[in-house]
Each structure stands twice: as structure tokens, then as C-alpha cells.
């Protein structure tokens, strides 16, 4: 049975239809437009037509190429820093200009530049998509020449050198960045690209410590096209792999190979692979390796090794590095003069083993001495480095640009921790890491959050006033409807005191780093906690001095004050404390700052909106930053025990809360 629609409904439906139609069209259209802007950029740069580039004819007659690499180059003498301003939308980010891609030919029509490789186009595309990109050369800090120099074998070094000088923004290479994976060629195999580049920065794979201009060039990994298609199996954590060491490089020198064969014959946990002699034709050579005649799938086989050996071949950089890292196989570098990829920022000692080439005969012993826990950590680190900085062309490109960007804007440079600590790990360093015991004579500031209980507040002030180490009392008056009592109504006390009228009734006001606080130590105390004695507070302070990156608090038993004016016990007694209520607790004034300005996402607002949990938030903050648990102080006088002379005791729970 259908409902009969009245004519008026028809109209409504029609209008609705029309509207949604318009909306859809608008949406598609808008989409289309935004896409086309991107497309436009790709079009201008000729990225979309990389296989069929427009031809630019250039005469190289009589053109002198730039000088060879200037080995004295550093950022301060070969780099024009004045080009690198910071713009408002992307502060502290340098701008990278890409020339439109082109096929360069000389007058006779012969190619000067090689056809573009897939990787070079991907690199171009990644930069064009990134925040670094600018289409305005006058605004640019870095220029990327439109010539694919990834593999020197494919270049006429001299001609490309000449061509570079003809580029509009070359200026002897200043502020130009050249990417190169494979430098040099037979028989000398130079370790840096031999295209004359003078002052240009080289992002190169396979630098030696003679050709590498440290803090100027960037050492990058040699990209392996093999890793793209490989699907690796999941592995259970802590699994011990079949082989301690695998050597899978095919082109190592017979001298090395001989040493390895000696090793293989004496160690059953060393797998020595070589290229296969007889493989069916349909299997591409690079996907197989052989142990004698036994065929293994490559690079999958690397997953069976804990460590993977990397020796220098004709060049120093090895694409096998990426294949090993992808397989979670810890690289062992025996490559004496090699500058490890991204070693300016990455701590390779956490993700690899470095030995001298002449220690090769001893390698198995060196590896066996590494404890299992260390191997587990290293493997995790390898996986982290790989996925963050190596995994594909964009990752390598962006890491390179980030390194240069950090040099240009050193005050916002990525820290060691950010580069090297996996974000998912529980890594934590106390923000107060210097082992300083707070000076006794500095004392502490008592911060009292008050609302309207004037009587107990006065009582509290009077009792705190007697604590020897007190320096100052700060009353935070959180009531906007009722003014705090006039000055002459307050009890007369010895110490300095001050009232701060807050502008809104927010609990977080108690955790504000007021300018009045001059001491490291802060005692946050509620206005209704009057049963703590002078000795107890003094003792709490003395304990806090020794553990000043933690919260030191008193057990709740001491400060639950019922509305009916009677003391109440909290029923919830537990053995593990992870939260010390800040109804009465000592902590470092620095945490006030971190609470107010650095607390992650919305917690502070939640607390202020709900008028609750500010103490829990503070406890979380402190344990989150320091990785340390709070300490509960329990003064006791009624028990006679041998150690009572120490003045008291305190409790500690062993659960570290590291909430992330």
C-alpha cells in the first residue's frame, strides 16, 4: 500500500531533488577545481608527461662547466642563507624550487640528459606535493636541477656539467641540491658524483669520508627498487631467527668472498649466498640467491637472518641495506670509509653493528657477544628507521630536505630524540634530569586554593606559618562572587603572604605558575586541610627536596574533612599508589608551567569545565613527563622502632605510570 502524495509534496520533492543535484554538482565541481590546481602544477613541471618530455635545445659550445666539488664547502661559505626566509604560512620551512622537466639536446639534436628514471620523477613529485615547494624562484632557498643524476653511469658527466651552468639559478651551484644514488663508474668508482658541481649540495649514496663535506652534503641510502613489491610475513616478537648472519651481496670481491667462505665452513649459523648460476629464465636474477645450488627467494630470505652483512663492492653504498632493513635484519657494516646514510642525524649504533673490514674473521664472535635483549631493541630500531626514513623515494627525499632545513633553521631543528626514538616507545626523560637536591634554605611556597571557607583558611594559614621552611603563602581566591576578607581581618603571621583574585572559578588556577612563586618547591594545599602538623609538612618538604621531580603527597586519611566537620577515613586502602591527591602535596613549580601551557589536548579544559579531577590531571602530567611515580609521606610518631630517629618514613609505590 502506497501513500498517496499530495501535489504539494511533489513540489517539495522536486525542489529537494534540484537542491541536492546542485549540491552534488557543486561538490564535484569544487573537487574538480582543487584537483586541477594540483594537476596544473604537475603539468607545468611536466611531471605528468615524464616519458614524453618537451625538448629544449641548448648550445654547449665554448661553455665551461663549473669547477669540481669545492671540498671546503660548508653552509656558511658555500650557501646563500639570505635566500632562505621564513614565511608566515610555513614558518621555519625553506622553499624548494623545481625547474620544469625537459629533455635537453644540443644543436645537433643529440640528448645531453638521460631519459628520466621512475625514481627521479617520484622525487620530483614528492617535492612538488610537499610544503617545501615553491613555484617562484625568487622566493626559493633551494633549487633542484631538472636533470636526473641518480645514476652516474647514465650521464655524460662533462656535458651535464656544462648544461648545469646554463640553468638560470645555478650560480656555481650555490643553493642547488643534486640527488645521486650511484656515483662514479668503472674502473675508479669515485665516491661522489663526478659531474662538476662546485658549491652544490650533494645528497649522495656512497660517500667516503674524503669526499663527504660534513654538515654540507647529505649521505643518503642507495634506493633499492626491489623493496616495492615485497610482501613480508608477520613475525612474533622476540623470535630467534634461523641464521645469525646472512651475506647476500652478489658482487663482492673474491678476496672478501674467500674470507666469508672460510667463515661459512666453520660457522653453522652463517648463511653465505651468491648469485645463482642456473635459474629458469622466467625468474629475474635479482629475485634469487643461491647457497651452492640451493635456491632461495630474495629478498625474502633475509627475514631468516638476525644480522645482514654489508661489505663495500665497487661502490660504498649498498642497495642491499634497504633490502636488509625492510626484512628486519640488522645491518652489520664492514665498510671502513663509508659515511652511513643520514648519519648526521641518525644514531646508527642503536640499529647496526659497525666493524672494521679487517675484523671480518672475528665477526661471528662479535655478534655472538651481543645479548638477546640488545638484539631485540636493535631490530625494533631498524624497523623504526626503515619505515620513517628509508621506506620509499618520498621518505628519502623528505628526510634529506628535513636535514638541510634543520641546518637553515637550527633553533627549531629536530632533536636527537625526535629523530631516533620511536614515537610508540615508552621513552621518557625527566624534565628535571639534573641530579640536584633542592637547597634547604630556599624553602617552599604554600599555594592555597580558597573559595569561601574563611575560618578553616585562617586556621590553615596560622598553622602553616609555623613550618620552618616556609617562605611565602599564596592564597588563590577562586570566588568571583564574594570578595576575600579585608586585610585587617586576616591573622597576623610571620611570613610574607599574598592573595590572588582569579578572574574565573577554574580549578586549574591552583596550578598556575604565578610570578609570586620564587621557590622551586610548591605545596599545593586545600583550604580545609588543617590537621597536618608543622612537623609533618616540614618532613614532607625535606623528602620532596630529594625527589624533586616527583609529587610528594600525604595520605588521604590525613585530609578528608567531611562537610559535617568530622574527620572521615577513606575506605579505599590499597597497596599500590599511583596518584597522590594534590589536596596537600609538594611538587616543582616547573610542573605548574607544564600543566598550564604544555598539557596535551584538552585535559586542562575538561578539568575546568567539570570542576573535577585537577589532581588526577596533575599526577598524570608529572608521571607522563618524568616517568616516575609519586611518593606518599607518612609521618608517624606513635610507633617505636629502631629507625624512628630518621624522623619519619615514606611510602612509595612501584607502578610507574607512563600514560601516552
Amino acid at each position, binding site marked *: 500500500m*502506497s501513500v*498517496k*502524495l499530495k501535489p504539494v509534496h*511533489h513540489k517539495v520533492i522536486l525542489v529537494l531533488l534540484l537542491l*541536492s543535484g546542485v549540491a*552534488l554538482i557543486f561538490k564535484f565541481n569544487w573537487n574538480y577545481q582543487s584537483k586541477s590546481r594540483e594537476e596544473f602544477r604537475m603539468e607545468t613541471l611536466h611531471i605528468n608527461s615524464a*616519458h614524453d618530455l618537451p625538448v629544449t635545445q641548448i648550445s654547449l659550445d665554448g661553455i665551461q662547466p663549473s669547477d669540481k666539488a669545492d671540498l*671546503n664547502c*660548508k*653552509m*656558511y661559505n658555500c650557501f646563500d642563507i639570505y635566500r632562505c626566509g621564513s614565511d608566515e604560512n610555513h614558518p621555519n620551512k625553506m622553499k624548494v624550487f623545481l625547474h620544469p622537466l625537459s629533455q635537453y639536446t644540443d644543436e645537433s639534436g643529440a640528448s645531453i640528459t638521460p631519459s*628520466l*628514471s621512475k625514481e627521479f*620523477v*617520484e622525487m620530483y613529485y614528492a617535492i612538488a606535493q610537499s610544503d617545501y615547494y615553491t613555484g617562484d624562484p625568487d622566493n626559493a632557498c633551494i633549487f633542484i636541477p631538472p636533470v636526473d643524476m641518480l645514476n652516474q*653511469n*647514465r650521464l655524460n658527466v662533462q656535458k651535464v656539467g656544462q648544461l648545469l651552468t646554463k640553468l638560470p639559478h645555478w650560480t656555481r651551484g650555490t643553493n642547488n641540491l643534486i640527488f645521486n644514488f650511484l656515483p662514479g663508474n668503472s*674502473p675508479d668508482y669515485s665516491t661522489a658524483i663526478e659531474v662538476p658541481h662546485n658549491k652544490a649540495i650533494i645528497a649522495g649514496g656512497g660517500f667516503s*669520508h674524503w669526499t663527504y663535506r660534513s654538515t654540507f652534503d647529505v649521505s643518503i641510502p642507495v*634506493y633499492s*627498487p626491489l623493496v616495492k613489491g615485497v610482501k613480508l610475513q608477520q613475525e612474533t616478537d622476540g623470535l630467534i631467527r634461523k641464521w645469525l648472519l646472512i651475506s647476500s651481496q652478489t658482487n663482492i*670481491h*673474491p678476496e672478501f668472498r674467500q674470507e666469508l667462505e672460510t667463515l661459512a665452513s666453520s660457522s653453522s649459523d652463517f648463511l653465505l649466498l651468491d648469485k645463482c648460476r642456473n635459474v629458469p629464465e622466467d625468474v629475474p636474477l*635479482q629475485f634469487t640467491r643461491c647457497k651452492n645450488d640451493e635456491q632461495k627467494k630474495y629478498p625474502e630470505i633475509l627475514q631468516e637472518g638476525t644480522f645482514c652483512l654489508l661489505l663495500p*663492492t665497487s661502490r660504498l653504498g649498498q642497495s642491499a641495506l634497504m633490502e636488509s632493513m625492510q626484512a628486519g635484519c640488522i645491518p652489520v657494516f664492514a665498510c671502513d*670509509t663509508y659515511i652511513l646514510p643520514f648519519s648526521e642525524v641518525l644514531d646508527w649504533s642503536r640499529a647496526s653493528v*659497525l666493524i672494521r673490514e679487517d*675484523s671480518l674473521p672475528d665477526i661471528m664472535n*662479535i655478534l655472538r*657477544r651481543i645479548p638477546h635483549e*640488545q638484539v631485540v*631493541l636493535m631490530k625494533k630500531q631498524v624497523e623504526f628507521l626503515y*619505515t620513517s626514513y628509508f*621506506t*620509499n623515494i*618520498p621518505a628519502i627525499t623528505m628526510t634529506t630536505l628535513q636535514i638541510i632545513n634543520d641546518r637553515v633553521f*637550527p633553533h627549531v631543528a629536530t632533536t*636527537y630524540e625526535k629523530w631516533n626514538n*620511536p*614515537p610508540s*616507545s615508552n621513552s*621518557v*626523560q625527566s624534565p*628535571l634530569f639534573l641530579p640536584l637536591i633542592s637547597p634547604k634554605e630556599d624553602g617552599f611556597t604554600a599555594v592555597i586554593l580558597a573559595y569561601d571557607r574563611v575560618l578553616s583558611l585562617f586556621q590553615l594559614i596560622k598553622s602553616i606559618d609555623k613550618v620552618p621552611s616556609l617562605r611565602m603563602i599564596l592564597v588563590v581566591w577562586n570566588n568571583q562572587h564574594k570578595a576575600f576578607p579585608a586585610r585587617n581581618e586576616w591573622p597576623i603571621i610571620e611570613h610574607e603572604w599574598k592573595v590572588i583574585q582569579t578572574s574565573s572559578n577554574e580549578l586549574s588556577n591552583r596550578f598556575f605558575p604565578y610570578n609570586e612563586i620564587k621557590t*622551586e618547591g610548591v605545596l599545593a594545599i586545600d583550604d580545609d586541610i588543617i590537621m597536618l602538623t608543622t612537623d609533618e609538612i616540614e618532613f614532607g618538604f*625535606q623528602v620532596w627536596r*630529594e625527589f624533586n621531580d616527583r609529587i610528594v603527597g600525604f595520605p588521604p586519611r590525613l585530609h578528608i574533612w567531611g562537610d559535617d566537620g568530622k574527620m572521615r577515613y577513606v575506605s579505599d*586502602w590499597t*597497596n599500590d599508589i599511583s596518584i597522590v591527591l594534590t589536596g596537600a602535596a609538594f611538587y616543582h*613549580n*616547573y610542573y605548574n*608551567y607544564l600543566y598550564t601551557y604544555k598539557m596535551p589536548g584538552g585535559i586542562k579544559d575538561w578539568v575546568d569545565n567539570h570542576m573535577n579531577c585537577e589532581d588526577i590531571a596533575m599526577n598524570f602530567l608529572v608521571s607522563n613527563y618524568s616517568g616516575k611515580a609519586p611518593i606518599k609521606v*607518612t609521618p608517624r610518631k606513635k610507633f617505636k622502632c629502631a*629507625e624512628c630517629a*630518621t624522623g619519619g*618514613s*615514606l*611510602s*612509595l*609505590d612501584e607502578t610507574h605510570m607512563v600514560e601516552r
Partner: protein
Amino acid sequence: MQANKRYGLLLSSLILITVIYNGYKWAHQYEADHFANDEYKNADRTKHTALEMVPKQAVQNLLSYSEQDYYESNSEELVPSPTDRHASRTRIYKNRKCRMDTCFDLERCRRTGFKVYVYPDVGEKTSTNFQNILASLRASQYYTSDPEKACLFVPAYDTLDRDHLSADYIHNLGAKISRLKYWNNGKNHIIFNLYSGTWPEYLEDVGFNLGEAILAKASFGDNYYRHGFDISFPLIGKTHPHMQGTQGFLKANYFPPRRKYLLSFKGKRYTYGIGSSTRNALYHIHNGDDIIILTTCKHGKNWQSFSDQKCETDNEEYEKWDYQSLLHNSTFCMVPRGRRLGSFRFLESLQAACIPVVLANGWKLPFDEVIDWSKASLAWEERLLLQVPGILREVQDNRIMLLRQQSQFLWDKYFSSMDVIIRSTLEIIHDRVFPEQARPAFAWNSQPGALYFNSDTAPSSYPFYHGLLGVDAPMKFTAVIQATAPVTSSAAPIVKLLRNLVQSSSCNEIVVLWHCGKPPIPNDRWRVLVPQDGAHEIPIRVIDDQPKTMGRRFLPRQFTTDAILSLDDDVMLNSQEIDFAFDVWRSFPDRIVGFPARSHFWNSSKSKWVYTSKWSNSYSIVLTGAAFIHRYYLKLYSEWLPPSLRKTVDETSNCEDILMNMLVAHVTRLPPVKVTQKKQYKDTSASQPYVNHAGVVSRWSDPRHFAERQTCMQSFEAWFGYMPLISSETRFDPSLYKDNVSVTRKKYPKIEI
């Protein structure tokens, strides 16, 4: 009807399309937002994948860059042999192009181990600094007096000052050095230098042919520095302390961290010549308010003839300010280059916890091969001087807190005395020679510094890096009992102790070091004496230790855990006391956590440190007869401390606990931790001679024993160069210790019974 149906159908399908479309978009959007917001979800990876989506048509016909080259070296004979390569490198890369693998005989070091030989003293004038260098080298654990066994050689000629206008300059040094017996063109030698070159060029030249010697030089410019071969040495004053140096200025971490002045500088201005452009420009950023730049032209003999119109007013203002008080009242201190690249100011600022802002293009900061200076200073491009005030104002308070603390850490660990400077220098070379033993970068740049690094310990097996590496503190411990009394019956104290130990939930293994004159009882007897539940049996390993010296309880043996519970055989501890102490130790794995404690104090009438066993409000020593110690400290005790100190312990059979406590406090700068205990430990500063069950008089009751401990304290202090012990007033109890709640709710009720 038909029309209605059609409308209905059309409408619903339209809605459906919209829903699907928007749903898809939302889902997409959600995913994008989700990843964008969630920093911890490997944002980098998703970012890279997004960037990887190159339009298919752009790359589909393209080859990979290495397509033809994958098997480029099928012809192996084209690959130069490693031997040839090395030979040709060694031929080419000499002298100015030296690197470790071409100019340094590494093979020699592999043969000899890392040993340092110092030539005998020569009859030449020697500065205090250089005397201290030689003294520290000779006291080093790497020192050898046998040149045949040496890996590194140090000439005894004072090479620190090579400015030939200077009084300390030794003439004709080149000839003298080249006549050294093992010189061999400088191979495996190291030359220390603070000043090189002179007016007017200040070339970085030491005035003689270095050949293949490593140059450890202050104010190194990076174009003169041979990568990974030379060492950038700190520039220090003439009176730099030898052993225990001046402490850092920071005594407390006050917040807010900003001091009265944002930035200050007080120093010479050069009106001409090298380095003058930098210092001449500084006044531009002076504002007289929070940026104070003070310069003087008064230096050199005839400064007046070079003075400019600013000099007079500058000089006047300069005299009004005190340099030290500026250092202590500024958040940042400007360290511009002078005639040479480095200046004393750098370390002076560091010590004063004033964050150095370095304006010296090309200066290699001291030990920058290993120290991450970005954590303690700001190096700024000289050309961008005018940006400095703006940049410094942008630096947030939390960053200042980190930079400042790090400045103090670095000062303390690597620069405060000549001794630590020399130790650091040697460790840097050591790690180059043995890269497989090299410290990770974080070991240099986080507490407690790299000088206590032990090459055969994995980073996760240190008591310091659990937080940094995000790993847990050890979950199990090994009990090491030093047994001095024979086991005559099942009532022997050690049997009681063992019975308690096997009930502990965290004990992994028990090692009994048999230090008793009589032979140990057979293994199966232990089984009978200490019956165990078969399912969770804790192995008891008895080692008939030889020789039976006191220090051997700290021998880093093959233990299965990093946590060690060091015990005397007559200790009375129940399993819960042990488990609780272990719980506490897991929070403080870098400290000694134990039961009975002692303290030290300064006796002003005798003006020396004294040891006391009296009850007092504080303690600084936890006795190692019942204490948790990280295995790492056993290694330090046995390998890092000099044999002379260990000998004192072994000869007196005493003081091992004092030495261990001093060692740990020296490394951590923290006091030990005392936990609560049910029963009193055997020695309660008793006046009665105490005879234990076996009829052996306890060593604790011997008055000689106490006197020895006083002597130990003083001789150990002399070696450390200061008193490392630090006092604490706190003791740790379980959470519900003696609280008025039911025993059944308590985790460690047996401590109270």
C-alpha cells in the same frame, strides 16, 4: 501512483547516492584527520605513502635508475680488491688528508689493546696544564709504561702553546719531536694544543710538521680539521683544575628560568684584522635593557692608535660591569669568535649555566664528534647576527630548562677538570679504534655520561637508560651471599637466609661465594637443608672462591640478571623484606638500595671527613651486606676503579661497602636509598662484642675495624679528589606500612610482624 513511485525511487536512490558519496568522503576525511592528529601513529609513514602516489601515467613507461646496473659488477675483476684499495688510499691520503684508516696503525692497537704510552719527561719548560695532562694520562686505566704494548703515544714536550710570541713557546720543537724514538712520522701519536698561529693571520699551524699525528687542538676550524681523525679540544685557562674541578653554577632548577638579562657579552672588540668584523657588529643588538653588549678597545700595547670614535664611550661603559655577575644573571651568553675561533667564554658560560650563543662560523665545538651541542647551546650563523634577539625571545621556557640543565651536565662530566677532558679524549679515540665497542650517541649526551661506559654491556643492561629506551627495569634478581661461617647445622644463619630467599617471588638464582676456611658442604646437602617446591625451584650455586678476598663479592661474574642482591651470610631478612626492597630498587636501579645505613660528616675541628655508625637523622652509606646493586656497578668496581683502592679493601677485608657507595654516588651524584626492615641488622653499633652462632666474632665488633674505616674514607676521598657521598634523610616503607588496616590487605605484612 506511478509518478509517486518513480519519485520515491528517484528520491531514495538520490539519498542513497548522497549518503554513499558523503559516507565515503567522511570515512576518508576521518581517516585523514585521524592520522593527521595522531602523532604517535607513525604519521611519517602515511605521509610518505601519500606522497608516493605519483600519477600512473607519469611513470608507467619509465625504467628504474638502476635497471641496467643491478648486475653491473657481474664482472668481478672490475671491482678493485680491498687490499689494493687500502694500499692506494694509504698512498694518497697522508698528512693533511689523514684519516684513521690511512694514517693510524689500527692493526697495532688490535694486537695491543687500547694502551697509551707517555714518553719520559723532558728537561723543557712545561706548563701546569700540560703537567696535568701527562699526570692524568699516566693515571689512566689505559696507561702502559711499555712502548711495545702501546697503541697511542704521547710526547712529553709541552705543545699547548704554539704562538711563537708567547712565553711558553718551545723553540725548535719540530726537530726535537722528530727525534722521538717511536715518532715514525707521527703515526699513532697525539699532540695536544691550545693556541696555534699568531698575529696577524692566526693560521691553525702548530709550527712543526705533524705528519700523521692526531692533533687535539682548541679552536679548531672545520677546514683544518681532519674528519674523524683530529680532535676538537676545549679551550681552557691557565689554571684549569687537575682533578676535581669547579662545580657548575646551577644549584637549583628555579622556575621561571629567565634571568635578569636575556643576552650579554663582555669582551674585547677588535677594530681591525681577523675576527674584527664579528665583534665590531655586536653593538647593533645592544639595547641597554635586557641585551647588554659591552666591549673594550683596551688590549694590546698601542690600542689607542687603532681606536675608533666608539672606543671611548665603550671602554667607559665596559668598566662599570662585572663579568661574573653578568654570566650569572643572563639567560644566554654571546660567544662570538675572537682572533681565533674559540674563546674561553664558551666554557665559562657553560659553567655559569648561561646558555652559549655561538657566533663563530666554522668552529668545531669541543668534542663535537660525540657531544650534541644543540642540546646545550645555540650556534648561529655570523651573517645573521641581527636575528639573534628575535630568535632568543622565541625560545620557550621549557627549552631553556633543558638547555640549561644540559649545560651543567656537560660541564660537569667532560670539562670541569683536566682529568675528565683527558678521559674524554681517550674514550673518543678508543671508540674509533674499536667501532664495534663504540658508545651510542645518547650515552655521551645523557646522565651519567660516557666516561663510565663499559663496552661489553648492552645499553639496555645499564641502570640509566631504561626510561630513555622505554624498557622495564629488571624483573628478577640474583642473590650473592658471601659465606664466611661453616654450615654446621640447619640452624646456621645462612640456612635461614636461604630458606627465606627461596620464598621470594623475584629471586632468580642464588650464588653462594664460599669464603670460609673449611670446605663447603656438598650440593645435595644444600638441597636437604633448603627444601624447595619443585615447580619453582631457585638454583643455588656454590662457588668455592679463590682467593677469598673481600672485594671478590663484587666480581661481575656470569649472573643471569642485572639486579644483584649482595648479602652477608648472617643477615636476617624475610622474603617480604627482600621483595619490597627489590620493588623499591626497581624504581631506583641506579642507586644502592638496602637496609642498614651509615653516614659521614665533616669534622671541622680535625678538618676532615669522618665515618660514623651512630644513629643519626641522615645516612649516606648503605651497607653492602644487605643491599641491591646493579650488576653494572660491579663492573665499574672491578674494572674502572684503580687497583690500588681495591687492594686497600682486600688487605684489610674492610671498607668494600664504603668504596662501593662512593663509586655509585660519584657516578650518579645521588644518595643511596634505605628501606624499612623488620629486624635489626646484626651490628647495631653495639658496645658488646658480638659473637654469632658459629662462634666467630663478627668483624663489626672489632675496634680496629672501625678505625680502619676512618682511614679508608680518607684515602678513597683522596683518590676521587672530593667527597662523593651524599646524604639522605628518607627511608622507604611499603604503602600501608603500619597503617591501621587489616593485615590481609597489606602486600608486605611480614615486615611489620
